[in-house]
């Protein structure tokens, strides 16, 4: 069960709880977010709560709600790739992110939750690499991942999905300046 709350790069990641399900569902049903998901069905309140009950005690996937300046702005998650292993044990994780607050979509702040989460995983879990499956039509997500150091590993001509891989080394190499910008002290 995810009990890890942490703050870095101006954002705080808090394990999702029942009280967050309303805002999460609202964002998840936003057509702009929905069209980039593999499952694009409208989610009812009952479905949302059933999903939460199913994953709440789960050790193969952890979900956080992201806040910036005390307001919820989006959600992140990690999932264990290796069968039978928890997120703590799995050397390969799949990560997800969406920014729900329109003010920060496409903003440089959108990197902050990912940086905070990846740092946490590389430093505290067994994580050696991240894998991402992204719709080939989702060029924003592909570009975003490439800025973090992801490399395209495979792209099937039969599907509209590409597989991307991020090693810890590539992550560290590609995010140094971004991290410096997002972790500067506030002006006194």
């Amino acid at each position, binding site marked *: 069960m995810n009990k890890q709350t942490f703050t870095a790069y*101006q954002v705080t990641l808090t394990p999702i709880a029942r009280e967050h399900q309303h805002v999460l569902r609202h964002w998840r049903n936003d057509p702009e977010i929905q069209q980039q998901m593999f499952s694009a069905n409208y989610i009812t309140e009952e479905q949302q709560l059933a999903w939460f009950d199913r994953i709440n005690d789960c050790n193969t996937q952890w979900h956080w709600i992201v806040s910036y300046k005390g307001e919820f702005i989006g959600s992140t998650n990690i999932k264990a790739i290796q069968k039978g292993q928890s997120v703590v044990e799995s050397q390969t994780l799949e990560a997800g992110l969406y920014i729900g607050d329109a003010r920060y979509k*496409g*903003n*440089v*702040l959108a*990197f902050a939750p990912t940086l905070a989460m990846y740092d946490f995983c590389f430093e505290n879990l067994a994580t050696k690499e991240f894998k991402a499956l992204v719709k080939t039509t989702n060029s924003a997500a592909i*570009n975003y991942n490439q*800025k973090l150091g992801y490399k395209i590993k495979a792209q099937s001509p039969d599907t509209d999905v590409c597989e991307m891989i991020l090693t810890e080394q590539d992550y560290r190499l590609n995010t140094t*300046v*971004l991290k410096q*910008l*997002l*972790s*500067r*002290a*506030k*002006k006194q």
Partner: protein
Amino acid sequence: MNNNEKLINAFTTALGIEAENVTDDLTYNAIPQWDSTAHMVLIAEIENVFDVMLDTDDIIDLSSVAQAKIILQKYDVNT
């Protein structure tokens, strides 16, 4: 060169775009040239040109040319 011209130069240098494209309503991610990498270069260029050091909140808020002008006012730079 006045401050407005300096700001336009900072954008053209950092983003590799023409000066006539640097209008107040130009926003981050609205053009391929202004992505996160260019944003970092832009911040460095603005800091260098105006001899200021922006804090993180301002780096996050600096999402348009118009916003850059507002933020620079906080650092006593009027464009």
